[in-house]
């Protein structure tokens, strides 16, 4: 290493070997990233349980606990992209030359070296070339007349684009990389939970930071639909985008169908109980037994009059109650075992009575209440959990994916086929039509195609000969004979 050669470095980067080494590194590192527990997904306590403190420090230091976001992994992906670009740039000029200037009037040496070649004995060179042209056209090989100084021949090809498709594939991979890079730098993901009626203009990102939205998002309603057996079928939320106090967009989103506004996407990701009460429906009847049963609807801290002198207030709602040490606690936010604390105030008695549903001994004074209550229905307040993401690079990714799929289709399934037809003389000086062909892949399929093409040209020639001969000459019809071998000289002279 005495001097630095930028050119040689560029060559090295583009070499297939470099690409393969880099790919192997990517494979090994990604595999490590799936085998070693990863940081943001795994809880810190679990990491400590899985690895000893020393090992954990080592893994953390090397970035192996968050492989896919480590600087060296990003660097590795960039090097792969660079290698891909270098390889494509280095190889492209050759392919482009091949593509833009097809080797139509190939020289003798080239034609003689073709793997697929044959010659047909003919009588009339011009007629046979015309026949060959018709067959080329039928086979989708756009025929072109190649006129040289003293020779006249035919060239046909199809799917020349297949030579360049591999560059489209590489370019699409670069596009995908760029897209993910843009997302890694400028994209974000966050989460927000909303209850019906709630509106927010900010949300919490994955890393705990707060992201401000350029508009407000409001939830109007949320809900769940079940199958007959009780398993959830559908979660939905009605969302509204509010800009300067005006609703500019609204949509009912479900899982798999997000709301997109201004490049920000809101996904239905979870649904659940807030543990808060929306409304409770109670049946109230006078303790004396007189009068009708009244149905009342109560929210938390709401007061409803029962008669001119009595009113009831919902003081507490405990979703999953348990009593201990003279206190009422809740075990969870799920309305598994709800208890309701009502306060009945009566002007006549001049006192407030605590009513508990169900009657909790030690807390309730249900018997002294002028009214009896019975819970009819309970409506919990649900929240909707929204995943929010901003991925400005995703369009590059999707464009890349489409291009990649099309490119691969062309690479594997469109074969660049070239065929030549040249009038010539065989070893004994008889006129022949020399035919040659080459394909850039699927050689064994082309072998069959080529044989078929030759057969078609033969029958076309004999058809033409039959019609013309029966009209003019009385010579015995000689069907064209095929000779395979290298004896003939391609490039006969064109007798005009």
């Amino acid at each position, binding site marked *: 290493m005495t001097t630095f050669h930028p050119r040689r470095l560029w060559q090295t980067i583009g070499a297939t070997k470099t690409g393969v080494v880099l790919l192997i590194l990517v494979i090994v590192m*990604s595999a490590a990233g799936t085998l070693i527990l990863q940081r943001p997904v795994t809880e810190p306590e679990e990491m400590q349980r899985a690895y000893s403190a020393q090992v954990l420090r080592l893994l953390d230091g090397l970035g192996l606990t968050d492989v896919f976001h480590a600087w060296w992994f990003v660097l590795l992906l960039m090097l792969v992209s660079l290698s891909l670009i270098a390889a494509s740039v280095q190889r492209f000029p050759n392919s482009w030359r091949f593509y833009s200037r097809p080797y139509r009037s190939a020289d003798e040496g080239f034609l003689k070296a073709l793997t697929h070649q044959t010659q047909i004995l003919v009588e009339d060179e011009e007629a046979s070339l015309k026949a060959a042209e018709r067959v080329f056209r039928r086979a989708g090989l756009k025929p072109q007349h190649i006129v040289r100084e003293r020779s006249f021949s035919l060239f046909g090809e199809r799917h020349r684009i297949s030579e360049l498709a591999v560059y489209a594939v590489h370019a699409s991979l670069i596009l995908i990389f760029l897209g993910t890079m843009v997302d890694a730098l400028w994209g974000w993901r966050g989460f927000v939970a909303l209850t019906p009626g709630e509106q927010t203009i900010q949300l919490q990102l994955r890393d705990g930071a707060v992201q401000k939205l350029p508009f407000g998002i409001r939830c109007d309603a949320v809900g769940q639909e079940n199958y007959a057996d009780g398993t959830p079928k559908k979660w939905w939320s009605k969302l509204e985008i509010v800009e300067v106090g005006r609703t500019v967009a609204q949509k009912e989103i479900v899982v*798999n169908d997000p709301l997109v506004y201004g490049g920000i996407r809101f996904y239905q990701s979870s649904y659940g109980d807030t543990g808060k009460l929306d409304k409770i429906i109670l049946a109230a009847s006078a303790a004396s037994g007189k009068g009708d049963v009244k149905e009342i609807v109560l929210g938390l801290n709401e007061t409803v009059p029962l008669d001119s002198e009595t009113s009831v207030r919902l003081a507490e709602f405990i979703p999953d109650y348990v009593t201990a040490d003279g206190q009422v606690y809740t075990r969870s936010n799920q309305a598994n075992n709800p208890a309701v604390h009502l306060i009945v105030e009566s002007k006549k008695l001049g006192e407030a009575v605590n009513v508990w549903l169900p009657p909790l001994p030690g807390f309730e004074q249900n018997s002294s209440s002028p009214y009896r209550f019975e819970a009819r229905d309970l409506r919990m307040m649900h929240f909707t959990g929204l995943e929010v993401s901003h991925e400005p690079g995703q369009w590059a990714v999707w464009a890349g994916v489409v291009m990649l799929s099309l490119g691969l289709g062309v690479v594997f399934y469109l074969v660049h086929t070239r065929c030549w037809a040249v009038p010539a003389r065989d070893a004994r000086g008889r006129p022949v039509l020399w035919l040659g062909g080459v394909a850039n892949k699927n050689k064994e399929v082309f072998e069959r195609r080529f044989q078929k093409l030759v057969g078609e040209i033969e029958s076309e020639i004999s058809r033409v000969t039959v019609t013309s001969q029966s009209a003019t000459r009385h010579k015995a019809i000689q069907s064209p004979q095929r000779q395979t071998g290298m004896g003939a000289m391609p490039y006969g002279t064109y007798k005009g």
Partner: protein
Amino acid sequence: MARTRVEAQPATGSRLVVMVGLAVSFLLLMALLNMAKSQNLWDEAYLLYGALIFYSAAGVLYLGFGVTGVSSYVRFASFAIWAGLMANTGAIAHRWYEAGHPPFASVYEMLLSFVWTLAVLTLVAERRYGVKVIGTVTMPIAIVGVVLMQLLRTEVHPLVPALQSTWLHVHVTLAMLAYAACALSFAIAMMFLIQDKMPTETFLAATSLFGVAIYMGVLTRFEAWGGLSVAAWNPEERSEVFLGKGMRLFVVIPDLGWMMLVVLAAVAAPFFLYLVWRRTEDDGFLSLANRAQFVSILLQALALVFFLLRIRGGRYSSFDTEGLFPTSPAASPFLLSGLVGGIFASLLYLLLLWRRADLECMLPSAEELDRITYRTIAIAFPLLTLMIAAGAYWANRTWGSYWSWDPKETWAAITWLVYAGYLHMRITRGWRGRRAAYFAILGFGVVMFTFFGVTYLLPGLHAYA
């Protein structure tokens, strides 16, 4: 010994065909009688039963070919696959109609589609590429698949919200097709190695190493005091027992771990003997290695029987919660397929050991097989690409991110990269023959790990499959 006996009396080929034919007609008659009795003519279970009968008939005929070398068995086996495929198609159509969505939602439905794809590909490989004996490999897999299906929950299961997406169906269909094409390329690459005159001993070593990999995988479930932990099963619900969301309850079957350890040693023995043979070049070690292979097959079969007996009968305790829980083979599909796969690979080795000359006559030439391997991968690779793309698109609609580096995603990408490597080596570097075949085999190894290994060993978002 068996070999000399068979060669002494050349088989006529008609006996086994007649026997299989009689068995098939008897079983079909029984099934028809049952159907007439139950008055439910087009039940999926009967169609599946029919498929099982025909696939088994094909398997028996292939086995008959393996033992006797009579080539007409293979032709009849192909008829049996056709019949089985028709029943299988009926079952899929019935399922699709009843569920109203393509059959990819549960493990049962995935197996149904997988077996169908496998049968179709077998016939395609036979017809188009002339790989006549490929059913020897694929039919046993199909049989295990259908048997496993009988154990699983078959009612149409409602889809949880995240799975109600056309893109998911596209993704899974493509995955199925791509993996099946990869499997085919693997089988053909193996056949290439046979035609490329790879020594039979090398296959012995490879079979032994394959078995070692399987039992190492099984022994990741080794528990203290020689137990083997398996997922608990609720027979009424026909589903696994869950402790929490996505957390299966594992129970420990005592002593089964020791048994697996012994089998691991037996499976590894041929490989060590092979190594000794390589060092000493004393052919005695080679025949010893072959004998060790017989022993390992017996032990593997024994392990499978014990595994099934213990898993079907009895209730076992768990470390995580109190009480005794039953379990079932259906709760441990990966363990079961591992054990069956090991036995099956060893049997294939026996087929090679005894019938190599016949196999070589029946297979296309090495160059042809080399080309077919490439062409199956040329089919698999775009499918893999589309599969990953459809999965990413679905993830983007469901989780809000097209790529989250979850283990399954990462391993799908690794699979893609390995096959991309194969294609580059072949196209730009001109790799042909052995090296290309090894690459194709490696590629399928990665596919298997993505499909089984990731699900079994690495947890992630892909909890559904």
